[in-house]
């Protein structure tokens, strides 16, 4: 029995000392591409951080984050989870076909009421512009058949029904569900690896919007694929992998020769002549190719001879939808309430918008607490 135990002890010692030594000699990493987050660095050491225990807490984070072969151990852990029958991780489901979907959780009722009240009050305050609300369903409700068997998720259809019923009549509800469901079989409407919808889905939504908003001079578009190697946020969030990376497409309009526009990122003091930031295709989050990501406020001015100007209040689903709107308006102003700290009433009064569009996806909207704050501004 002795030799065998000695070997066991030897292996154990080699294992813990080996990894400890590797950790000691390996330089610390600042960023993990696999997890898309900054890794914890060696914590600040002081009498206070020791006495309140924060040094020890962060030390554990640091040791785990900088552990040798961390990415390999992470993959191993995910394998193990899949092997034992797990189809969910951090609220993300792994579907039969390998695509990932975000679960929809029961929304907070109080927040729902407050947000609704803020929207109603806002629409009552500004009777001038035509207002539209586009609440985009997520993959879980457009492709419910793909979900793992018995996987629980809240009913998005009921949520959308309820919301459109509660919305004041002065705001026109844009219901995309028929159009999206009809196209679901032939078109990939959501990225397999990311929580956003695809540009193809955004086009379907735009066609719907065009009808309701009465836009007539829509130019023909050319579809082109600009990236084939997009691995999105759901992968880094859940740790699951997808069978193949996603493609990102854009639709470029055939515009008249003399049409031009400028995109101003007011807070950043930047001005561009295009909706697309192709530099971002070299980065991890390639969805940022649309406008370089989220901005508190974007102002797009076009050479179109029109009186119509639009305000879009939105989340990131709008980013790939906005380029379709550009040729239709004299100006398009885009506000993202998550990052917008200025006074919305000043904006409304100074600009005299003819149209206001709210664009949110259900998952973000149900959790959002920023919209009500921005709309309530004056109160």
């Amino acid at each position: 029995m002795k030799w065998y135990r000695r070997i066991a002890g030897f292996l154990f010692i080699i294992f813990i000392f080996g990894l400890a030594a590797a950790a000691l000699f390996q330089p610390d990493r600042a960023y993990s591409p696999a997890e898309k987050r900054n890794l914890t660095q060696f914590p600040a050491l002081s009498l206070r951080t020791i006495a309140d225990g924060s040094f020890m807490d962060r030390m554990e984070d640091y040791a785990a984050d900088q552990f040798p072969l961390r990415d390999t151990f992470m993959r191993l852990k995910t394998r193990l989870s899949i092997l034992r029958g797990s189809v969910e991780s951090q609220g993300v489901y792994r579907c039969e076909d390998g695509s990932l979907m975000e679960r929809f959780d029961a929304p907070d009722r109080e927040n729902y009421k407050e947000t609704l009240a803020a929207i109603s009050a806002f629409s009552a305050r500004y009777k001038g512009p035509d207002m539209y609300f586009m609440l985009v369903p997520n993959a879980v409700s457009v492709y419910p058949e793909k979900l793992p068997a018995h996987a629980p998720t809240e009913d998005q259809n009921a949520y959308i029904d309820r919301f459109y019923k509660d919305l004041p009549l002065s705001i026109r509800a844009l219901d995309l569900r028929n159009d999206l469901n009809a196209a679901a079989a032939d078109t990939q409407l959501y990225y397999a690896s990311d929580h956003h919808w695809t540009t193809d889905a955004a086009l379907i939504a735009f066609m719907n919007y065009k009808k309701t908003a009465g836009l007539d001079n829509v130019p023909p578009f050319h579809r082109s694929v600009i990236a084939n190697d997009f691995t999105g946020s759901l992968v880094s969030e859940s740790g699951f992998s997808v069978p193949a990376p996603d493609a990102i497409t854009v639709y470029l309009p055939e515009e008249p020769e003399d049409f031009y526009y400028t995109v101003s990122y007011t807070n950043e003091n930047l001005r561009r002549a295009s909706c697309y930031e192709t530099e971002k295709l070299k980065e991890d989050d390639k969805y940022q190719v649309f406008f370089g990501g989220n901005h508190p406020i974007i102002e797009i001015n076009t050479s179109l001879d029109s009186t119509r100007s639009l305000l879009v209040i939105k989340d990131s689903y709008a980013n790939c939808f906005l380029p379709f709107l550009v040729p239709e308006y004299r100006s398009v102003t885009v506000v993202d309430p998550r990052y917008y700290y200025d006074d919305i009433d000043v904006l409304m009064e100074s600009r005299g918008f003819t149209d206001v569009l709210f664009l949110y996806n259900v998952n973000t909207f149900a959790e959002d607490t920023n919209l009500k704050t921005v709309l309530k501004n004056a109160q």
Partner: protein
Amino acid sequence: MKKVLLTELIAVLLLVLVMVLLLSNKRTREVPLAEVDAAFSAGFSTEGMEKAGEMRFKRAFGLNAADYQELLYYTPDNTMSVNEYLLLRVKDEAQLTEIRAGIERRLETQKKNFDGYGTDQTELLNKAKIWSAGPYIAFIVSREADAQLDFTADMLEEPGFFARLFGKGGKK
């Protein structure tokens, strides 16, 4: 027997001492927040944040500054920044609970806004500090959060037993 009783008495006194040291509240000094502000802006870079008033405070935390004794608030100066420095002095220590809740709400919202989007911001938010002693409560998001917390505490706390023991702190 006398010796036994004496030893027991010493044991009890020692226990009382240990318990007093472990359980006594941190004592604080009264310092006008303007003074803290002056020292703060002299000692740290305020890059990424700007001085803000009651309105911005209300917007961020959903609380009314008028309910409290004094407010010092630096808010992010552009929307891609998350740097923040909040220091409040309350009228009544019972108010600390609601403020703490407001701070935690604010922190959650900020984390949600930048989750999966801004890695640097997320890192700073995860390292955010909440500190409270006596009638003061602070909320700090910054690359220098640790140092700023030390600064705040040194400014407002009477040095504790251990700090005295190790010769740290004392009047500035």
